[in-house]
Structures are given as structure tokens and as C-alpha cells.
């Protein structure tokens, strides 16, 4: 076993975990309000291209992050308006957002494809903690974006569970009619939740093109937006569990390119497990695990309410008589 190889793997886990956590947290907020947004892949691409462009133009990754968040919040609001305010099918509208986002990002980024990155999130060494073996080179040297993702996770938990706004948001996602009768503005809350979800997906995109895989191509997102959607289910709509899932799925993404080295070959250094795993199997694992969790959730729901927001996917119109 080679120490550098393992540290490299752990750093990669943190990077993929950060990407997935930001996107999944955003999706979770939207779903908690009752809006399924299948546009994460497209939103992430839009975030990636906007951030990369600002990075090239200004050299400032933080400006790029904020810009991407704002752009994608607006972009996500297309889904908000279409599915919440107008009342179109959330699945169709969300898929359209993915297709539109991927296409639009490819179009807008045509001239950026061969551009060298001029901005990147720097590793942040946390004082003396960075000298701790193993942890120092991994967690205590990760970028501030990863810390920001953790902070946002904590903030999301607090807002959802400990504030009036969060209670209203969850109520809207459980039963819009009940929330409406209690005087909660259903449409407004859902629009805000979708926009916040978009902002987080935009930040994920920025992290992708300015840290995880510096540069821009129309293939940058590589299906990771879909993993984020699956993660929300895997994490049972709870910020803490979604974090665990992000690390787990991030681990699988990090393993994938390293698997060739697993087979024991004469004189080989590094991880050696003595057997071969096809990387394609590993890339399927997040979805297989999600299906397993879905089954467990459904079995549990026979005896008690499901952990999924009850009103997810439902259009709400106040009954007029």
C-alpha cells in the first residue's frame, strides 16, 4: 500500500463529495417544498460554464461562484414558473431543463473549450491542523468551498427544522392545501425553494470547472447531476444522511478511474486487492444503492408515513367554488 495513493484517493473523495453535496442539497430543498427538479444535470452545466467564463475573464473564483449561483437560480426559475406557477408536469419540465441546460451551456461555452483555466479554488490549509498525518493533507487542506458546503448543510438543517420559514416549506411539500389553509403562501415558497436549489446546483457547477476538473467541455458534468438526484432519495431527504451519501457516492466516483490498479501485478505498488472490478460496475453502484434504499423506504412506509415529501410532484391550485 502506498500512502500517497490512498491520500490521493481520499482527496478525490472529498472533491466528488463536495460536488455532489452542493447539488443534492439544492435538490433536496426543492423537493422538500414539493417540487421535483430533474434539471440538476442541466443546471450544473450552466453553472459550470458561467463560472468558468467569469474565471477566465476575472481570475477570481469566488466572483465566478457567486455569478454561477445567480445565473442558475434564474435558470432554475424557468422550471419554477412552468411547473409551480403555471402548473405543468414537474417531470417533463425538469427533464426539459436538463436538455435545455446542456444545450445552452454547450452553445455558450463553444469558445471556452480550449481556454486554459485562469482561476481555481485553492486548497485551504487549516493552520497547525494541516500537519496532522492523513487528515492534514485531506480534510484540513480542502478548499473553502467544501467547508461552505458543510456550512450550508448545517444551515439547511437548522432552517428546515428550527424556523417558521422551514416549517412552512416542509408543510407546503407535505400538503399544499393544509399549508394554504394555515395562511402559508404556497406558490411563493415553492418558487423560492426552486431558485435556491438552482443556486446550489450552480455552485456545484462552479466547483466542477474551477477545481474538480479545471476547464470546460460540454461533457464536464458527465451525469453527476443525476447522481445528485438519486442522492436525495438515498439520503431520505435529510441533510445529514445526504452528506453521508455524498461521501459514499463520491467515493465510488473517485474509485472508478483508479480501479485498473487494483489487480495485483508483479512488482506493482499501490492498492492491491487481488481481483478485478470493472469500472462500469462501480459507476452503476450509486443507482443500484438508490434502488435498494427506495425499496427499503417503501417497505417502511407500510407501517408509517413515507419519508418522501407527500406532495412531491403535485400541482397545487386553490379550489374555487
Amino acid at each position, binding site marked *: 500500500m502506498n500512502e500517497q495513493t490512498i491520500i490521493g484517493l481520499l482527496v478525490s473523495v472529498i472533491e466528488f463529495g463536495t460536488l455532489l453535496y452542493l447539488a443534492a442539497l439544492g435538490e433536496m430543498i426543492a423537493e422538500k417544498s414539493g417540487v421535483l427538479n430533474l434539471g440538476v444535470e442541466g443546471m450544473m452545466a450552466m453553472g459550470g460554464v458561467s463560472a468558468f467564463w467569469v474565471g477566465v475573464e476575472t481570475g477570481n473564483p469566488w466572483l465566478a461562484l457567486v455569478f454561477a449561483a445567480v445565473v442558475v437560480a434564474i435558470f432554475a426559475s424557468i422550471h419554477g414558473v412552468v411547473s409551480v406557477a403555471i402548473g405543468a408536469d414537474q417531470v417533463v419540465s425538469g427533464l426539459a431543463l436538463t436538455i435545455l441546460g446542456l444545450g445552452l451551456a454547450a452553445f455558450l461555452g463553444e469558445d471556452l473549450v480550449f481556454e486554459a483555466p485562469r482561476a481555481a479554488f485553492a486548497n485551504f490549509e487549516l493552520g497547525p491542523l494541516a500537519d496532522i498525518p492523513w487528515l492534514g493533507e485531506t480534510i484540513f487542506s480542502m478548499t473553502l468551498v467544501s467547508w461552505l458546503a458543510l456550512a450550508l448543510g448545517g444551515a439547511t438543517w437548522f432552517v428546515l427544522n428550527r424556523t*417558521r420559514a422551514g416549517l412552512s416549506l416542509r408543510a407546503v411539500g407535505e400538503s399544499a392545501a393544509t399549508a394554504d389553509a394555515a395562511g402559508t403562501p404556497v406558490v411563493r415558497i415553492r418558487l423560492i425553494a426552486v431558485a435556491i436549489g438552482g443556486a446550489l446546483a450552480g455552485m456545484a457547477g462552479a466547483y466542477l470547472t474551477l477545481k474538480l476538473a479545471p476547464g470546460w467541455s460540454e461533457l464536464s458534468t458527465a451525469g453527476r447531476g443525476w447522481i445528485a438526484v438519486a442522492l436525495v432519495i438515498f439520503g431520505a431527504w435529510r441533510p445529514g444522511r445526504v452528506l453521508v451519501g455524498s461521501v459514499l457516492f463520491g467515493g465510488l466516483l473517485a474509485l472508478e478511474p483508479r480501479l485498473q490498479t487494483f489487480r495485483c501485478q508483479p512488482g506493482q505498488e499501490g492498492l492491491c486487492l487481488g481481483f478485478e472490478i470493472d469500472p462500469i460496475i462501480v459507476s452503476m453502484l450509486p443507482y443500484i444503492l438508490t434502488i435498494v434504499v427506495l425499496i427499503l423506504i417503501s417497505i417502511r412506509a407500510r407501517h408509517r408515513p413515507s419519508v418522501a415529501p407527500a406532495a412531491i410532484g403535485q400541482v397545487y391550485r386553490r379550489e374555487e367554488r
Partner: protein
Amino acid sequence: MEANGLAVELAGIWKRFPGVIANAGANLKVRPGTVHALLGENGAGKTTLMNVLAGVYLPDEGTVSLDGVEQHFAKPADAIAAGVGMVHQEFRLIPTFTVSENVVLGSGPPIIAKSTIEDQVAELASRFGLATEPGREVWQLSMGERQRVEILKALWRDARVLILDEPTAVLTPGEAEELGRITAAMAADGRSLIFISHKLDEVTAFCDEATVLRGGKTVAESLPVSELDATRLAELMVGETAEVSQRRTRETDVGSPVLAVEHVVVRDIHDRAIVDDVSLTVASGEIVGIAGVAGNGQRPLADAIAGLIPTESGSVMISGTDVSGTSPRARNMAGLSYVPEDRLGVGLAPRMDVVENSIMRAYRALSKGLLIDRTGASVYGDKLVEDYDVKVGKMEAPVAGLSGGNLQRLLVGRELEVNPAVLVAAQPTRGLDVKGVAAIQQILVRQAAEGVGILLISEDLEELFALSDRLLVMHEGEVVGEFDPDVATRQEVGAAMAGAHKVEET
């Protein structure tokens, strides 16, 4: 403020719905600090009138005043802000939220410390003697506990007027007594309560005054409950000159049993027996009526016979075949037809067209291999529409656009066109206009004459008296009485519906 000393005054309220006049100049006066009973038969307009007071409906005419000040409620939130709370028959609670989360939803402090909120809710509850556990999730609670959460929601918003729409319908007798204590505590606090009910014993026990509605009009205003007894109340509710529908005269003799239900038990998710050891038979050519206040097990009984919900024990025989535990289709094949209470949700597919809905029972006979014979189907649909006098625009239009009467004729026709041995009809005339009611009743009578056995579940006593050969009464999931409509009086049946047997037995 209190210009006329009345907490609530509804004056000359009219409310019309397409085809129905729900309120025709109804009045109601409630004094502060009293529990006021609002009485009337099903369809007398009680719930509509209360929805006007709660801001759900805008009245066509008439005024709503609170403490002598005229109010104009555009939406429920306006009424809530003015201090009117309503506990609907169907609770509006979020099952996955705790009691306290449901209570503070929409009107809590910006930052919610769980323990603080739970303490505050517990304190409010104890002030009015409401037993509750603020930290439990609502899905774990009994119906009585859920109702107390609804009352707490209203108290949290400081409701001065609280409307309880048939609050005891879902309660056990013990829970109902407790509700009486709670309402008394609230009235003692200076609040006013409006208590919608059918049950005389509760009214005399819990209420101070009573207003009676009939046909959307107020027929007795603010009577002291001490002046009420069962006879007087029945007179007021039914009307002394109530037109009695023509009693059906039997043309054929009753044949052999086509439906036999024995000791059927159905439990809800709280393990409560909602159908409790029910046995009954329906013979060929017979109409057996089931009377009862809504929610006393009629609907689960019908669903259990049709095979839509599982039974815990007991058996169902159709034309001599034991169909217990079989699928709905097996029961259809054995000769059962079902007109469910929820016409558009269970009975018909709203977005499918008239032809498609017509053939939902007979489509096998209209198929060639895997394909449906479109021409045959449309001939079948045309005949059904013609025979049962369904007024439709285009046969290819979704049935959701049809009126209630036409929907019901289509549904009843579809179920009868397959020549069943037994028809279970749940609330087949509810919500229909006079012509629609007559049409459905005629169809039922004609079918019985042709030998179909009919189980008729209804909340309309007139209808049951007019059509039934035998009349069973359900109360709290049990069949508590059997009457011969030729000799029984409405008061006797009404007493059984209200659970009078319990009093006599003890």
C-alpha cells in the same frame, strides 16, 4: 363593540351551487360564551352555512357579522384573522408533523425552539383541559387526539368563534364526553362555539341553544335546548308536512339469497373495527336499505363486499359462491355490481370518454383477442346512453364534463347493463337534483322488479323508507337494528342511528 350583544350573526344567507340551492335565506344568532347547536338533516345546508362563516364560500346574499360588526371574508385567512376557527369533518393536519408543529404552522415565532413550542402548546392545552402530547407525530394519534390538535390550532390563533362540523362522528363515546368538557371550558372562557350535529343526546348534553335548518332555511332559531325533545326535534328537522315519497309496491316475490355477508370485520390502520361483525343477506328482487350517520362503517362495508379492501374475518357469498378474499373482478364475474360512493374517483375515470367508461365492465365481450372492437364498443356506449337517458355532448369527450345526474346514470347503467345478480349502491342519489334522484330511484325499483338484489346504502331516510323492503341501521360499524319500513317510524330509525340502543342496553 357589541352593539347587539351577539358574537355571531348570520342574516338572510343565500348560497346557490349549480343545480342546488344550499342556503335559502338562513339565519343564525350566537351569543358570546355559549355552545350553540346547529341541527338539520343531511343536505339541510348546515355545512355550507358554516363555510360561509369561515370564509370558504362567499354568500350570494346576506350578511355576516361578528360582535355586531359586518364582515366581508374573501378567503379563509380573513375569517381566521377575524377570530373564526373551523374544525372540518376531514381534518387538515400534516401527518408527519408533530402536534406542536401542526399547531404553530403559519403563525409561530421566526425561530422555533422545539421544547419552547411544545411547552407553550402543552400549556394552552392544559388551560382548556385538552389531553395531548405536543411532541408526537400526528399519524400516530387517534381520531379524538387529532381533533384536539385541530381545536388547539384554532385556540393558538385565538379563535373567538369555533365551528365544529359533526365533531363526534369520528369519536368514541368516551372521547365525545371529553369533547363536551372541552367545549364547556372554552365557553366559560367567553368564546362561542357552533356545534353541528344530528344527535339529540349530545345537543342536550353539550349545548345551550339550538338552531334548526331545513332545506337551506332556518326553521327554528336559538331555541333553549331544555325545550327540545326527540319528537319536537324530529318534527323540526324533517318537517311536519314533509312530502313522503311514494312507497314502492312490490310486484314480485322475493327470491333466493343472492348476497350473504357473514360476520365481516374490517379494521382501520388504528386497529379499530370500522365494520364490526356485520351479517346480512339480500335476496333476489329485494331492496335492503342501510341507514346510518355518515362514517359509521357503511363505506368500508360496501368496499369490503366489492373486494376493494381486505376483511379481517367473515365471509361474503354472491349467488351461492364464496368470494371471500377474491379479487374485485372475481366478484364481478360472480354477479356483483357496485356503484361506489365516490363516483368520479372510484366509479368512473374522469378523463376517459363516454364510450371508454361505458365498456369498463363489458370490455371482454367487446374484444377480439387483444384488441377492443371499436365499432362494437361505440354501439354499446350509444345503447347505454340511450337506455339510461344520459345527456352527453360528444361520446368522445371526457366524462369529467358531465353533470352529477348524468354521471350517475352512466355509472348505474354501466353496472346494470352486465345483468348482475346483486347491486351494491352507495349513496346513489346524493348531491343530485330532484329529477336526477327520481331517475336513479326508478332504475333501482325497476331492476329489483326484474330480480336483482339491491343493497342500498343511503343517508336519506325518505329514500330508504320509500324503496327498502327491509331497513338495517349501522352505528359505529355494527348493524344495530332492523326495521320494517311499513311499520317503523322515522323517530325509531333516527334513534337507532344516533346510537340509542346503547342507552337502552345499559
